[in-house]
C-alpha cells in the first residue's frame, strides 16, 4: 500500500511540476519539456486509474507523436540564437487573475457537489476487448466521425503548409 502511495504521489508531482514548467518557462524548449513531463505523469495516473491500455496510448500518441510534432515545428520556426520576446506584465497579471478565478470557481463547485460513487466493475469489464467492442458497436458513429476528422486534418495540414507554386 505504501509503495503504491509513493508511486501515485510521484506521478501527481510529475504532472503538476510539468504543468508549471509548461506554463511559466521563458524558453519554448522548456515549455515543451514541461508538457512532456506532465503527460508522462498523467499517463501514470491513467495506469493507476485502472487502464494500462489508455496509458500506453497516451505515451504512444501524445508523447511519441504530438510532442515530437511540436518539437519539429519549433525547430523549423525558431532560430536558435534569438532571445525570447519579453513577457508583458499586464497580460500575465490578467491571465493569472482569470485562471485563478476559474480555479476558485471550480474548487467551490467541487466542494459543494456530492459525487455518487459506484462499486468498481469486475476484471473482465476492464479488458481491452471491451474497448474495441464499444468502439465498433455502441460508439460506432463517433469512431467513424473521428476517422473523417483525422482525414480532414491531414488534408488541411498539407494544404495549409504547402509552399505556393506560383507560375514564374
Amino acid at each position, binding site marked *: 500500500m505504501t509503495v*503504491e502511495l509513493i508511486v501515485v504521489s510521484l506521478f501527481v508531482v510529475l504532472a503538476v511540476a510539468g504543468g508549471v514548467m509548461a506554463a511559466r518557462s521563458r524558453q519554448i*524548449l522548456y515549455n515543451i519539456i514541461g508538457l512532456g513531463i506532465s503527460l508522462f505523469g498523467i499517463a501514470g495516473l491513467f*495506469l*493507476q486509474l485502472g*487502464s*494500462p491500455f489508455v496509458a500506453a496510448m497516451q505515451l*504512444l500518441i501524445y508523447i*511519441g507523436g504530438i510532442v515530437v510534432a511540436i*518539437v*519539429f515545428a519549433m525547430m523549423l520556426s525558431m532560430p536558435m540564437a534569438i532571445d525570447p520576446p519579453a513577457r508583458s506584465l499586464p497580460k500575465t497579471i490578467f491571465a493569472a487573475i482569470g485562471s485563478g478565478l476559474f480555479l476558485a470557481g471550480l474548487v467551490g463547485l467541487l466542494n459543494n457537489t456530492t459525487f455518487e460513487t459506484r462499486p468498481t466493475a469486475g476484471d473482465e469489464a476492464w479488458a481491452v476487448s471491451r474497448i474495441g467492442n464499444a468502439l465498433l458497436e455502441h460508439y460506432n458513429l463517433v469512431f467513424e466521425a473521428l476517422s473523417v476528422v483525422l482525414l480532414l486534418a491531414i488534408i488541411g495540414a498539407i494544404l495549409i503548409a504547402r509552399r505556393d507554386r506560383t507560375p514564374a
Partner: protein
Amino acid sequence: MTDFPQIFGGHWPGVLAATVAIMGFITVNALMLIWLERKVSARIQRRYGPTEVGPFGLLQTLMDVVKLIGKELVTPDHVHRPLYLIAPVLVFAPLLALLSLIPIDEGWIFHDYDIALVLLLAFSSLNIIGIFAAGWGSNNKYALLGAVRAVAQNISYEIPLLLAVIPIVIMTRSLSLHEIASAQAAYPFILVQPLAAIIYFIAGTAETNRAPFDIPEAESELVAGFHTEYSGMRFGVFFLAEFTHMVIICSVATILFLGGWHGPLLPGWLWFFLKVYGLILVMMWFRWTFPRLRFDQLMSFAWMILVPLALVNLLVTTVVLKL
C-alpha cells in the same frame, strides 16, 4: 482491472533479479554483437577482422570497452548542460524497460501483460525524444541537423511499423506477445503475412538508424550526426542503445512472424535465440550490402512505397479474414 500492486505482482526480489538479469544480458549481448559485426563486415569485405586478442578476436570488444571506460568524460563548454547530460539516459532507458516484455519460451516471461505490443511501440517512440535532446543539447549545427533528420526518419518509419503489426493483431485477436507466439504452434505467421514481415523488418531497420538508413549517424555525412559532441562512455551508451534496439526489433519480429520458440528438436529458448540472432545477422548483412539511402529517397521510400503497401496488406487481411 489492473492496479499497481497487481502489476508488480508483489514479488520484489523477483523484480530485482529480473532487472539484474536484463542488465547482464544487455552488456554481454552488446559485447557479442560488436564482435559479430566486426567479423561479419570483415568477411563480407574479404578481410579477416580482429584475430589477435583472444581466440578469434573474441576479447577484442572487451578491451575496447575497457579503453572506452578509461577515457575522460569531456563535457564541452558550449553545450546546453541539462539536455546534454540527460540525452543518453533518455535514449537508453525506454529500451531497458522493453526487454522485460519479451517472452523467450513457453511461460518464460516476467509478466504477461495483455497490452505488451502497444507498450513496445510506445516506448520505442520515447526513444525519439532522447535523440532530439542529444541533438539540441549539443548546441552544434551538425548535431542539430543530424537530430532533425533522425527524428523525421524515425517518425516516418514508425507508421509502416505499426501498420505491419496490425494484421497480426487482427489475426490473433490479442496484443499480448506471449499469446501471439503461442498461436503459431502450427505454422509461423510469415507464411501467411510475408508482405507484413518484409515491411516490418525494413521499417525496423530504419527505426534503429542502421544502414542503409543511417544518414543520422553516417560517418562521412555530418561528422557523426546527433552524437557528434559525445565522447567516451556517453558515446558508448548511444552505441549500447542502438544494439539493444536492434535486439528488441529482431525479437519482436521473431515473435510476431517467425513463431517465437516453436521448433522441432532443440529446446524452445535455443530456437528463440537462434532466430533472433539470425535476424540480427541479416541486419548486419544489409549494412554491408546496400549503399546508404539519401535522405529524400529515404522519406519517399517510407511514405510513397511502404505506407501504401502496408495499407493494402491490412485491407486484404481484413477482407480475407471476413470471408
